[in-house]
C-alpha cells in the first residue's frame, strides 16, 4: 500500500504584499499620503503561521466571505526528509546561470493564501491573514526546473467558474529578485516557503468565496489545488 499524505510546509511561510503591478499601480496615488508617506522600498512581507497550514481538500472555516489568494510558493531546498525536494535539488544546476538566487529553490507549489478584506496596509494583518486553515496547499511540490516562473498563469475557479487568472509576468519583483531582496535581510531556512504574492481584480478587490463554495486553483505543469469553504461553528 502506498499512502502519501498531502504536502504541508515544513518550515516558516512568508507572504509578499503588493507584488503585482496591477495592485501596486492602484495603490500608487495613496503611497505618498498618510500613514504610508512613501512607497515601500524593501519587500513587504508577512508570516503565515502554522495554524494556517491546511492540506489540499480542506474545508476551511469562515464566518462570512474570504478573499481567495492564488499564488505560487517557492519551497527552499535542503529539506532532506522530503523526497520530492531532495530529488529536485540535483537539478538545480540547470537554473544556476539564469538567476543565482533561484538555486536555493527546490520546488514550487500552488497555494491559496486566504485572507479577510482589510482596507489599510499600515499595521500587520494578523487577524485577517492568520486564521486557522488560511493557507491551503496543493498536495504535491513540483521540481523548480519544471516550472517557467516568468510566464506562469494561475487560474482560480469558484464552483467551476473562472474568477481570476494571475500572470507571473506582471510581478513587481519576479521570483529571483524577490528571493534576492528578501535574503538581503533574513535567511530563508531549508523547508521555508516564500509566496510570490496575490493579485487583485481590475477594480482592486480580490475574488471572494463563502461557505459551501468549491475552489480550484490550477496552472500548467503544477499539481492543482482543490478545497472548499465551510461555515465556522459559532
Amino acid at each position, binding site marked *: 500500500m502506498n499512502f502519501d499524505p498531502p504536502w504541508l*510546509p*515544513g*518550515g*516558516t*511561510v*512568508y507572504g509578499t*504584499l*503588493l507584488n503585482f503591478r496591477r495592485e501596486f499601480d492602484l495603490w500608487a496615488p495613496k503611497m505618498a499620503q498618510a*500613514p*504610508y*508617506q*512613501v512607497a*515601500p*522600498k*524593501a519587500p*513587504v*512581507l*508577512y*508570516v503565515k*503561521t*502554522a*495554524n*494556517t*497550514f491546511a492540506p489540499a481538500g480542506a474545508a476551511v472555516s469562515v464566518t462570512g466571505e474570504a478573499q481567495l489568494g492564488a499564488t505560487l510558493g517557492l519551497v527552499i531546498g535542503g529539506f532532506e526528509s522530503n523526497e520530492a525536494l531532495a530529488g529536485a535539488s540535483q537539478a538545480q544546476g540547470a537554473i544556476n546561470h539564469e538567476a543565482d538566487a533561484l538555486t536555493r529553490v527546490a520546488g514550487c507549489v500552488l497555494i491559496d493564501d486566504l485572507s479577510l478584506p482589510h482596507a489599510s*496596509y*499600515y*499595521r*500587520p*494583518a*494578523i*487577524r485577517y491573514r*492568520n*486564521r*486557522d486553515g488560511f493557507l491551503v496547499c496543493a498536495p504535491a511540490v513540483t521540481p523548480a526546473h519544471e516550472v517557467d516562473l516568468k510566464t506562469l498563469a494561475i487560474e482560480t475557479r469558484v464552483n467551476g467558474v473562472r474568477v481570476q487568472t494571475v500572470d507571473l509576468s506582471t510581478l513587481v519583483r519576479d521570483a529571483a529578485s524577490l528571493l534576492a531582496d528578501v535574503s538581503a*535581510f*533574513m*535567511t530563508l*531556512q531549508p523547508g*521555508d516557503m516564500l509566496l510570490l504574492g496575490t493579485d487583485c481584480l481590475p477594480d482592486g478587490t480580490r475574488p471572494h468565496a463563502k461557505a459551501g463554495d468549491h475552489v480550484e486553483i490550477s496552472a500548467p505543469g503544477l499539481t492543482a489545488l482543490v478545497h472548499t469553504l465551510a461555515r465556522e461553528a459559532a
Partner: protein
Amino acid sequence: MKHARIAWAGAIHDAIERGGQLELLTPAFKGRLLNFDEVVWLPPLAPVPRARTVLALGLNYADHAKELAFKPPEEPLAFAKGAASLIGHRAHTVRPDGVQNMHYECELAVVIGREAKHVRKGDAHDFIRGYSVANDYAIRDYLENWYRPNLRVKNRDTCTPIGPWLVDAADIAEPMNLKLRTTVDGRLTQQGTTADMVFDVPTLIEYFSSFMTLYPGDVILTGTPDGVVDCPVGSVVVCEIESIGALQNTLVSESNRAPAPTR
C-alpha cells in the same frame, strides 16, 4: 523550576537550574552539574513538530501608549516572526554596518503549554507552559509604514535573543506584576513593570485564540516599556525580568563576519 536548553560536549541537552549551576537531564549525563560559562545557551524551547508561531506585540505598555495621544490602541498591535531569528543567552547579535538606531526591547515571553482555541481570559493561565525573557531588537533605520513594524526591522537573523530560562508558570505567582530592567554595559537604561501592559497576558491569549489556534511551544512576546536606546557594536545588553532571569547579549559588527566567498 527553571529549564534550559544547552549545547555541551557535542550534543544538545535539557537542563534545570540547581543551586547556581546547570543540572543535566540527558540520560547519559543525568545529574551532572555544569557551570553557566561551560555551556552554549540555546533558546529554552523544546523542538516542535511544525513551524513555531512567534507572535510579538507593539505599543503594549501604558507609557508608550501615553506618547500616542493618550489613546491606548483598541486592538493589540501584533505581528508574527519566524523562529529562525531566535538565539540563546550570551549570544551575539549582528548590528548591520551604517545603521543609526538599533535598540533592544526587553519583553516578557509567554510560552504556550496546551493547544489553545477560543480560550476565555479567565482560563488563559491553564494554557501557559512558562515564561522567559526576550530581547526583540529593532533597527529603526529600516522602518517603513507598510505592515509596520515590517520584517526588515523585526525578523533578522540573530536579532531575537531569548532565555536563559523557561520558568514554569506555576512558579510565577503574579506574572502581571514583575519588574523589567535593561542595562547597557552596566548602565541602567530601561525600567518598567508588566503591570503597565495595555493588553495583559490573559487578554492576549483570549484575543489570539479567538481566531487562531496556538500550539504547545508557541511564543508570545508581550511588548516593551519606554526607555529604549541605540546600542553600538560591542554593547553588552542585559534584559532582566524579576523571577524570570537576566538575558545577556553582545552586539557585533556585520563587517567582522567572514567575507563572502568570491564567485
